[in-house]
């Protein structure tokens, strides 16, 4: 399936691997922190709703 990359296979594959890893990394980090913050906000809203 992988096309014949010739003698530069290492370079091309590692470039794709690194880039995709970095992109997935920033997306995952954003989503993870976003979820956590959203949960905290819901928690704070619930408390605020109870008290006032």
């Amino acid at each position, binding site marked *: 399936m992988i096309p014949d990359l010739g003698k530069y296979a290492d370079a091309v594959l590692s470039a794709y691997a690194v880039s995709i890893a970095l992109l997935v990394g920033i997306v995952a980090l954003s989503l993870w922190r976003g979820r956590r913050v959203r949960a905290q*906000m819901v928690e704070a809203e619930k408390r605020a709703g109870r008290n006032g």
Partner: protein
Amino acid sequence: MSLWEYANPVKFLGLSERVMPWLWGFAAACLGVGLIWGFFFTPDDFRQGSTVKIIYLHVPAAFMAIQAWFMMLVVSLIWIIRRHHVSALAAKAAAPVGVVMTLIALVTGAIWGQPMWGTWWAWDPRLTSFLILFLFYLGYIALWEAIEDPDTAADLTSILCLVGTVFAVLSRYAVNFWNQGLHQGASLSLDKEENVADVFYIPLLVCMAGFVLLFLALVFYRTGTEIRVRRTRALIAREGRGAAAQVEGA
């Protein structure tokens, strides 16, 4: 209906809830199509062999690295002039994405340069400028992290972004002067220089669109996160004064 309406955090969150699924979807589609097209279905360049496939990552990432800083500059100016909190938070949200883009451009550039120029790194003006841009991003993020009061942080980082832009441009000219460099001239412009043929050009455009959309999706999402951090902080501050500063993840 004015554009400024979306400077209200709640309105902004509503807008981003509606827009974001589309952004994520199109970003994934464009990146998927562009990268698969570029990786599997484009021919090798007669001089550069298969390394030409790196272009589908390198050029869009480099493009976005600069555009991200430019976007931060614009929203910083909006914050300084109109004091909309969302714009300051958008600048904060965009910076780490810009760092990742710069890093991708630098790493893929190094990997590409190794077989082409016979070296991982050369003090070529373009590479050097990106390294300097990377340092600017790091300083900007570090300043955001170091200051507790969010409005003070927004003010200081905005001014740093302004001053940094001037110096980034100066540095660009300085390194140009300092070393003429190996890097080919901009290989992409609207009128299509001849060294990028159609077969490469169209998937490259798709990848560019994918990177832009991904950047937008990330900035929308991360700005939403920053708004929620501030909202949580405000709620806790209202609940009991003094406990305000310690919001996790702030």
